[in-house]
């Protein structure tokens, strides 16, 4: 009896050690692949960043009318974002190659699934990036325009526009990622409508006094405009 127990124990230990020994090369390959990809990612990111800085990528974006990068902190510089995205992609590829090294069926399937999903993630990231930029650009345009029109709810308008555009970008990104599309559509509709409704309420009820004062001021200004003003600018 004891002999059988010993034999079973020895066999299970041998099986575990064999399995572990079989697993070790895969693990080593995974770690090596990951390390190489991290080093490669860092090098490529550094080179790309240097190149982008050299060709004044941030300034060129600004010239194209895309919100400036110079105004952002260095963490938000488009050149840095692009270089870090490339680094992340290389590390991701290294990670998937490492997973393949295990040779198991599930890891292969997982890697295949992730590879198939990468275009969606990239598309969604691009939509978010552009959406964020457009949201910020429009918010600033509205803010400056509203201040120049002496509107006392300029900031409210600006924030409203920013969130409207951003929520739309998030909904589009989620749609692209195919994450619960039905719920996303519904949630987007509710959220978008909610923002518009909140803005309307804020203008109509919440900021009633503010709006009333502002409109009164506008009316006074309109009547004042009928009186000839002496100021001529150009």
């Amino acid at each position, binding site marked *: 009896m004891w002999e059988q127990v010993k034999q079973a124990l020895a066999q299970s230990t041998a099986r575990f050690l064999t399995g572990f020994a079989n697993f070790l090369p895969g693990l080593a390959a995974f770690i090596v692949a990951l390390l190489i990809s991290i080093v490669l990612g860092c090098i490529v990111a550094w080179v790309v960043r240097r190149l982008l800085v050299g060709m004044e990528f941030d*300034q060129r974006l*600004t*010239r194209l*009318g895309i*919100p*400036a990068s*110079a*105004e952002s902190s260095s963490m938000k510089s488009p050149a840095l974002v692009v270089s870090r995205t490339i680094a992340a992609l290389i590390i991701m590829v290294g990670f998937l190659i490492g997973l393949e090294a295990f040779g198991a069926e599930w890891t292969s399937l997982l890697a295949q699934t992730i590879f198939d999903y990468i275009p969606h993630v990239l598309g969604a990231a691009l939509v978010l990036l552009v959406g964020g930029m457009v949201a910020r*650009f429009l918010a*600033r*345009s509205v*803010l*400056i*325009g*509203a*201040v*120049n*029109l*002496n509107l*006392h709810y*300029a*900031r409210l308008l*600006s924030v409203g526009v920013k969130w409207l555009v951003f929520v739309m970008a998030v909904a589009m990104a989620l749609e692209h990622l195919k994450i619960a599309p039905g719920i996303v559509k519904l949630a987007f509709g509710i959220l978008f409508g909610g923002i518009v409704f909140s803005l309307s309420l804020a203008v109509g009820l919440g900021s009633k006094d503010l709006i009333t004062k502002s409109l009164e*001021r506008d009316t006074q*200004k309109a009547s*004042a*405009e009928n009186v*000839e*003003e*002496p*100021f*001529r*600018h*150009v």
Partner: protein
Amino acid sequence: MEVEPISQPAQEKIEQVENADLVVGVLAQLDQAGLASVCDSLRELPGSPRVAILRDDHAANPAPATSASDGNGSSPFVLPWPLLHSETPGTPVVNMSNAFRSVFSASEKLGARACCVIASQLETKTPQWYSRLAAPLLEENLDLVAPHYARRKFEGLLNSSIISPLLRCLYGKRIYNPMGPDLGISRRLFQKMLGMIRIARAGENRAHPLASLAPAALCDNLQVCELHLGARVYPPTDWTNISSLVAQVLGPIFLDMERNAPCWQRTRASVPVPTIGEPLFVSQDTGTVDITRMVESFQLGIRDLPEIWGLVLPPSTLFELRKLSRLSLDQFRMPDELWVRIVYDFALAHRLRTINRDHLLRAMTPLYLAWVASYAHDVESAGPAAMEQRLERLSVAYETDKSYLVSRWRWPDRFNP
């Protein structure tokens, strides 16, 4: 390469006239009698030069082609010409710039020795000023005749607060209305402008036919003079469009600063330019003015635009602006030194593209209105002499603080007070 494509009908008109010594672009809304007085005035030019008048064909009562010609070859030829593009309302400076370009192109085609642009109506009805604008170009070989309008204290404020003192400080010549718009230009200068436009079309730093005119003449040491004229009739202020106006005027000036940096960094003090005629004075209103709207706009800016101003202005300036925003209407005064630094910092931010340029220029509007409010307070009861002194103090402040601009321009990262 053509600068301004000339349409077939326009080409035919040019062929009718063949050549001209002087081309006069009339942008002002003149009726037939007004146009006739322009023709009469130009007939008085010594030497009977051959004159072609380009009249905006969008004008209310366009004259038929060559209607004013009497066939003896000495009378001005009047050609209806597409000068102002009325399909782009709200862009007066852009329209004016296009009109200048059009006049330059036509002048080159006609081989003119000089061209003039008549864009204003003056309060004093002395039509002789048309010929006085052209005569120095033809007789004395001057290159640029700029107007020196008799000024009222609340008129031409963008010129008084920024354009004139800034260009005086940058290029070292005291020209009171460097952007005219009633200007006389020699062949040498308009050809230079056409050349700049041709070069700039390939790149992005576009030359502006109106804003670049005086800086181009001054940087090339061309002969510039001023002609004393009566008070100009200014269009009424459109308060809803003022930020657009600020952006349209200041954008080309800041671009020119970038283009001419090697020139203006060498210039130190300023000197007056020769003048023609005697200064004219006009009556000044001495009543109180309402500055509430402008101060409110500034206070709104302080409340809602600090993030944007913070990207452009140093902390010390922002601190001063916050202090200013807490002052009552009676005490509201913006020191000249503060205003000058604001203009310099915005010019620098424009060059560095700190934020989108259109946003930048529009975000300057509340600050400009704050200066106007402060200035209005200072001069509301002042006479002409006191007003001139006030504006001279501002110009001196620009010149005194030029070292700040030069330092920040050369070392924007290192020199940041």
